[in-house]
């Protein structure tokens, strides 16, 4: 079991390294990005992220990290190290879970949305999230997902109870429509 298996595996797939010390923030964001078509690697602290980036055969295109990340470096220190280790890397720092979710939404707006092994389930789950929350359910609306929409979708994608998700200091979801069902 080694990372040599990386070589030749899905070479065209854009890879995001999601770096967040709070698993109930990291998990739904990672799942959301996977549904958007990214390959997502997860690290709970900067030491894990450094271990990944030190392996040149592991492709990473984007790092999505929180600033107050556990580990021997904070987010700024890690970003400085990562830029020197991999100058081509795109690094996105988030100061809050809201910003991290917003960054993920922007990545999906710009990224390989459903361009690689396409799974109808991805589109279905997101569009159903809109539908359940009283939003628009047309598949084409997914790219219009703003932070507000993303925050409303993420708990559904991850099936995380709202009270659990809210405990991570995410902003309150906007007022639900009368058609909202739970």
């Amino acid at each position, binding site marked *: *079991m*080694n*990372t040599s*298996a990386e070589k030749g*595996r899905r070479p065209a797939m854009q890879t995001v390294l999601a770096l967040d010390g709070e*698993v*109930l923030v990291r*998990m739904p964001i*990672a*799942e959301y990005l*996977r549904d958007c078509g990214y390959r997502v*690697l*997860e*690290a*709970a*602290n900067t030491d*894990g*992220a450094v*271990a*990944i980036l030190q*392996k040149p055969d*592991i492709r990473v295109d984007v790092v999505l990290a929180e600033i107050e990340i556990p580990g021997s470096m904070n987010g700024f220190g890690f970003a400085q190290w990562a830029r020197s280790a991999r100058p081509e890397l795109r690094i996105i720092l988030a100061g809050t879970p809201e910003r991290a979710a917003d960054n993920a939404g922007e990545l999906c707006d710009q990224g390989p949305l459903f361009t690689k092994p396409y*799974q*109808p*389930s991805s*589109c*279905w*789950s997101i569009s159903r999230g809109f539908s359940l929350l009283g939003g628009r359910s047309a598949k084409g609306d997914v790219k219009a997902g703003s932070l507000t929409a993303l925050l409303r979708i993420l708990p559904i994608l*991850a*099936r*995380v*109870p709202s009270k*659990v998700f809210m405990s991570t200091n995410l902003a309150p979801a906007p007022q639900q429509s009368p058609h909202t069902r739970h």
Partner: protein
Amino acid sequence: VIDANPEPDVPPPRLKVLFAEDEVLVRLVVCDVLRENSFQVFEASDAAEAISILKATPVEVVVADLHLRAASDGMVIARHVRAHCPGVSLLLASANAPPITEHFDAFFMKPYQPEHIVMWIRRHHATTSPREDSSIA
């Protein structure tokens, strides 16, 4: 009876697997293999993360390294699964001998091949296996 409003393109449910392993490169490789086999995989780097995930979302299979950051982390996960997650398959892994005090469904001696975990899950979750046409012998 004809359903006038069938759910369009509803995908079959994917088997959910929680994989708890503190070594990030091991976690990366094994989770890649599990996802390539169509499982939905949640990653935990320690027992606290694993239990947070288990409290937040149901899974069918838990794979836990016995020796995470704290020596007994894997046992903490195992006890939580047995106490609070009935029906969940519990797979343990370690470079040392399997535990004799905890009930588990399978044990994998490190280093193991990730495909062996895939085969075990397929064999024991045949009715909910996401891909019946397994290419693994």
